[in-house]
């Protein structure tokens, strides 16, 4: 009897092992998603004592007609796009720069790792202090060292979003850096030596050898960053609360506002479903690019 059980267990160890994980994932991940989709078809306003009522696709129709939604989508794309470029450029350049042997290279690299591992909330507060228009060090340095005027980092509608992108890129470019370094290690030295013997300059080597070889890996990490940047929340919450005006209200932040500031659960759910569709769409495009390169 026990023997039979053991044999059965042995054969199905895959399932057995997977079961608890799978169960939790289904329960805790799939359930919220399904419930969100369900809620998005209801009007559920907690400011009012009215119970929730079924309204079909009306939430979605209202969203499409609301310019606030479209602007927030634009802002999300702005953050993701500019952020991806900034992070890529900074991370990749530093990766190339650090691609040489010297003492203390490992320790230096680990310093660059720090922004990635600390809480975005802490990072937000650090930057809040730095961005202070009157009393922050950034404007002071701009004034004294570069003779530039103070920049209203967080109080000007045209600048605030960029300030958020800068802080976010500062936090995450080391991730691109690490991937670049990992990828560079995988390139056989002979390739590079051969090219140098042929008289190629540093730029040419980078352009024609390194970038193509690293492309799949870089695209993958960019995909991850894109997905994460759509979810950006902590920085906006602490630095600007969506302001000044609406200038830093991204789609994700708007979803939070509608859900936990105005308590329109149905509308908020519909927004989050739309956000998911947008992210999956962009991710699908990027994945196609990666697969083609592979």
């Amino acid at each position: 009897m026990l023997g039979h059980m053991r044999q059965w267990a042995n054969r199905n160890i895959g399932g057995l092992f997977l079961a608890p994980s799978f169960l939790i994932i289904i329960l805790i991940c799939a359930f919220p998603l399904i419930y969100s989709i369900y809620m998005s078809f209801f009007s559920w306003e907690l400011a009012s004592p009215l119970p929730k009522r079924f309204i079909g696709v009306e939430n979605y129709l209202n969203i499409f007609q609301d310019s606030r939604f479209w602007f927030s989508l634009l802002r999300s794309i702005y953050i993701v796009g500019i952020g991806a470029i900034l992070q890529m450029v900074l991370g990749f350049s530093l990766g190339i720069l650090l691609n040489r042997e010297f003492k203390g290279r490992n320790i230096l690299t680990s310093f660059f790792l720090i922004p990635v591992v600390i809480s975005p909330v802490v990072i937000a507060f650090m930057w809040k202090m730095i961005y202070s228009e009157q009393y922050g060090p950034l404007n002071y340095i701009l004034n004294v060292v570069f003779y530039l005027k103070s920049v209203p980092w967080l109080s000007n509608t045209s600048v605030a979003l960029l300030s958020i992108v800068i802080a976010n890129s500062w936090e995450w470019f080391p991730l691109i850096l690490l991937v670049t370094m990992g990828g560079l290690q995988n390139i056989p030295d002979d390739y590079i030596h051969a090219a140098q013997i042929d008289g190629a300059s540093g730029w040419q080597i980078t352009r024609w050898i390194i970038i193509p070889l690293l492309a799949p890996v870089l695209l993958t990490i960019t995909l991850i960053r894109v997905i994460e940047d759509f979810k950006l929340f902590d920085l906006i919450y602490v630095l600007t609360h969506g302001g000044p005006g609406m200038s830093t209200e991204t789609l994700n932040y708007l979803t939070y506002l509608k859900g936990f500031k105005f308590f329109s659960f149905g509308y908020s759910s519909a927004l989050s479903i739309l956000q998911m569709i947008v992210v999956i769409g962009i991710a699908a495009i990027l994945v196609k690019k990666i697969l083609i390169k592979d």
Partner: protein
Amino acid sequence: MKTLKAKKKKINTFVAFLLIGIFLLVTLFPFFWMISTSFKIKGEFFTRPPIFIPDRFNFDAYRAALRSGGQKALIDSFIIAFISMCIALILGTMGAYGLRELLKKGKNYGFWMLIIEMMPPIAVVLPLFILFKYVHLLDTYPALILGNTVFVLPFAIWLLLGFLEDIPIPIEEAALIDGCSKFQVFSHIILPLLRSGLIPVAFFSFILPWNEFLMALVFSRTKVTPLTVVIPSLVMSDTVAWEQVAGLSVMAIIPPVIVAMVFQRYIIRGLTFGAVKG
């Protein structure tokens, strides 16, 4: 000819290190500023020009922050992060191995784990809020642990799948032929080989809950107060206790930074692994 090239190389190297230095400065300056702020006293904040180095190492901010809920915050965050890490390690390794067993044909199922990462957190938080309300789990540790597991567990499985691929199948087959049960293969062969991969998984499954904000904001009330919620709460209506914010933030980043620097090689491997294989 040779000296020209050598000179060029020297200039190149010099420029390279200059740039690296600038990168380093920009990367580390915010930390420097925050640490310096944590040592300031009231009069040293809103000054023009800003004070870069305060007069003395004044620990008042740390004491005050600990008193205003900082102590409980550190403990609560630790509990949530630690248990989440344990769950991720145990269920993650089992889940990754089980997944690989079930789907031997090498399809990239790791990718499906990423789909879960694509869900906007609100889509998860709102329903969980309603669910937890009904089972009276709001403002409890289980609520935050479960909530964090939603995102941490798939990520852990994704990382581990990458590491598992590194373990050549012949080793497993040899063990099976020798008469080991699958379970023994798992515990005596896979796990030890996986050890170096477990470190980045442990690290990230601790860090992600430690740094997590939205769920902490929504699920916690008075009994459970994670760090990421306590720090913003030090921002009152017109008076912000900046030195306390800085002090508590410094305390909040010490664990991740120390672990990251000590285990950096493994963590880097973990990060690059996922990306390279993924």
